[in-house]
């Protein structure tokens, strides 16, 4: 229990209208986009770095957990307050501080919604590429803490590739500034990379400076349909092998196309087994050459039909199916587990096969799509959390999927983070040595374990999950 005097102090720091203790408010901050939930003891919505510094100092002295929260759309349980404590709701810190047109950077507060930043910089002819599919809800702070990716990752990389500078409040309440506006920066340890993707376990991010790039002049879209999923997967590998890096390279299997077609007909033929959707960007000339080569490669990989969009309207039509995917999944299932195991790009065909085998073995429906151009697969397990027997099979299937991804030289998470959901697999990927190293970092910077405790890995070896 957070003692009453502490609540009083929080009210003094952030203003009493920004401190919430009613059960109704606590319930609203108990969940994210996973199926998990746990109640915090108090929710505080701070306005400044100074307030956060004071709050963290207080929490550290009182040994109260602190969980920073942006849009609450985490897919790995990263903002679930499993140990109670204080949820820091960052929505009031939502200012775009500066778009620096000379240095091509943007400096923002953590509560800025990702899509809002996209719009603001694109107005100036600039581009912030990371595009997690939650970008209309998620915040930049959350994206940095989770090191979010997105479909454009194949060409443009992920959030960490754009973070140039951070302001962070550490566990003792100190305010740390790392990095800045320089493109090159090798002074000291690369703390920026350490904080990026740290899931709130090492500090509270309070300001972010991001690298921007020029907005590409043109883009073109292509949809290729295949009689077998293997051919589609081969086309994906082949495009990369041919040294073409599209902006996005998405693959859909038969199952997902069927669901989409029943949900919102977009004209997928019902007898195709796989499809890939590709977007290229660059100069006008560049995109035309690239799209022609991609079309050739798809044909060589026995694509039954290649559709190249002539204009933006046609491109939107080709994307309509992919965009409807999430709705189609939800409409067909009570519970959807979206996984994000990621493998080296050359292993995509193997991973696709393994997912199909696992689905068959556990008698589960696992329609798969993914940002396959960067090896990031999204098998979607359709189930019903009320069906306990099936949930056991789901769990076993997920275990086996991660095992398969790791065996192929892959990783547990491409973009959703570890949080609570994948914590138990961490020893598989890092071994005890790797975990011991991470734990010693965590102990050194947060000796009282107040910063988002219980996320990513457990502090003691062999501790019960």
């Amino acid at each position, binding site marked *: 229990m957070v003692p009453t005097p502490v609540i009083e102090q929080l009210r003094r720091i952030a203003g009493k209208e920004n401190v919430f203790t009613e059960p*109704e408010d606590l*319930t*609203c901050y108990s969940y994210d986009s996973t199926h998990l939930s746990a109640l915090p003891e108090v929710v505080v919505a701070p306005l400044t770095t100074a307030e956060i510094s004071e709050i963290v100092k207080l929490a550290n002295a009182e040994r109260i957990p602190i969980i920073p929260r942006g849009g*609450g*759309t985490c897919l790995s349980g990263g903002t679930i307050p499993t140990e109670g404590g204080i949820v820091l709701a960052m929505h009031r810190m939502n200012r775009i501080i500066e778009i620096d047109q000379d240095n091509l950077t943007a400096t923002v507060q953590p509560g800025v919604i990702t899509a809002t930043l996209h719009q603001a910089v694109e107005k100036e002819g600039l581009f912030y590429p990371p595009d997690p599919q939650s970008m209309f*809800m998620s915040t930049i702070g959350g994206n940095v803490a989770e090191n979010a990716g997105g479909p454009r990752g194949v060409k443009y990389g992920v959030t960490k590739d754009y973070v140039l500078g951070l302001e962070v409040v550490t566990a003792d309440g100190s305010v740390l500034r790392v990095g800045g506006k320089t493109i090159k920066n090798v002074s000291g340890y690369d703390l920026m990379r350490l904080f990026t993707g740290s899931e709130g376990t090492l500090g509270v991010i309070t300001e972010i400076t991001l690298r921007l790039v020029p907005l590409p002049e043109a883009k073109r879209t292509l949809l290729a349909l295949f009689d077998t999923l293997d051919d589609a997967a081969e086309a994906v590998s082949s495009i990369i092998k041919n040294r073409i890096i599209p902006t996005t390279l998405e693959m859909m299997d038969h199952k997902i196309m069927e669901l989409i077609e029943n949900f919102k007909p977009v004209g997928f033929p019902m007898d195709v087994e796989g499809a890939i959707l590709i977007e290229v960007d660059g100069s006008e000339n560049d995109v035309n050459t690239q799209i022609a080569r991609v079309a050739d490669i798809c044909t060589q990989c026995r694509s039954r039909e290649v559709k190249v969009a002539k204009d933006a309207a046609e491109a939107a039509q080709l994307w309509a199916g992919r965009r409807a995917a999430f709705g189609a999944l939800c409409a067909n299932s*009570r519970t959807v587990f979206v996984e994000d195991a990621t493998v080296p790009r050359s292993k995509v065909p193997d991973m696709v096969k393994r997912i199909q085998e696992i689905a068959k073995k556990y008698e589960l429906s696992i329609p798969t799509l993914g940002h396959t151009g960067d090896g990031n697969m999204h098998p979607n397990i359709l189930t019903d959390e009320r069906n306990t027997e099936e949930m056991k099979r789901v769990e076993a299937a997920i275990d086996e999927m991660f095992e398969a991804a790791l065996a192929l030289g892959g990783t547990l998470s491409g973009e959703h983070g570890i949080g609570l959901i994948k914590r138990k697999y961490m020893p598989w990927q890092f071994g005890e040595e790797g975990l011991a190293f991470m734990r010693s970092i965590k102990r050194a910077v947060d000796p009282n374990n107040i910063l988002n405790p219980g996320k990513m890995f457990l502090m003691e070896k062999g501790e019960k999950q």
Partner: protein
Amino acid sequence: MKNLKEMREEAQKCLRCGLCQVVCPLYNALGSEPAVARAKVRLARELADGNLKVTPRMKKIMSLCLNCKACVANCPSQVHTDELVLAARARIKDEDGLPFMLGAALKQFLPSNNLQGAAAKASYLYQQLGLQKAMRASGLIKAVSPDLANMEAVMPKFAPRTFRAELENMKLKRGGKIKVAYFLSCMTNMVNTGLGKAVVDVLERHGCDVYIPADVQCCGTPQLAYGDTETAEALAKNNARLLAETGADYIVTDCGTCGDMLRKYEELVPEAAGFSAKVLDINEFLVDKLGVKPGDKPVNAVVTYHDSCHLNRGQKVNRQPRELLKAIPGVTLKEMAEADRCCGGAGSFALTNYELSMQVLDRKINNIKAVNPDMVAAGCPACKMQLEHGLERHNMKIPVVHPVELLAKTY
């Protein structure tokens, strides 16, 4: 109507993806989780399960919903948050009752045609005799109660005689091909009597016999919005009976909200079985059933159209008003950005949450400003009232009209 317990399964459908955050006008304004649909769905579930109780905070959070249904339209799982919120409000009302004044308004004033007539007269006099100007200038209301001052500011301009009073001397044509019952809304009755006349005129010119049962009462929306299901059901029963008794082929409304409610009568009361299929919005009726036949007199104006939530997402009528406007000689229809975004009026929401409502409204007015129209068209008198207030706040002298009023001008 389903109660909260029966709606529990609906709440369970939510996958917490957060897509409602993108479109919820109140979440966009406030940014805090309790404002958004996903949170209300969760709270409704906990309330149904008995894990949370009816408390002042629960009441407050459940009151923060415009019932604009944008979340429902954007929800991949099609969770009906609008109905969940109404069910939660009904539970709150059952446990806590209604505040005295609100109860009086919902149960006595709104359903009573006599009281409405008297109030309209008093309001008209207040405005005509210069009292309103004097009151506003004196700052007296603001001094007594800022809330009351805000309410007074949003107050529409009342008509000198209610439509119901005028109806007594109105000669409705007979001998047409199609029998239409026109549902007289409170706002047409007290404020926009000109709209009522335009509707009758336009329908008659399209070969309809118009029947207007004068005894219909308030449609029941305000009662349902505050959780007073019984009064809403009583109104539904009476209105459905009166409208059905006309023997009309179609029941037509000129108010997005009333129409949305009339279409729900079937779900509300068994007596209204088969009723809802006959209900059509006037725009829909003219465009889809009759074919718009405008007159020759042009209305030279650039018009932008605002989608009322209850007309667009509630009744799925959005194409027809635009087609109707385009059919009017001289009208250039120019789309504004976010035409389907709520104006923040939401019945009495603008009165009870004035500042928040104005934040939502300002975004709408800025979108209107960007297309620089000569007038704004809307298919709902509640939106009209809110938009007029917003335009006035922004010193924009642009009228807000119903598409049918423009059509009537062409004859």
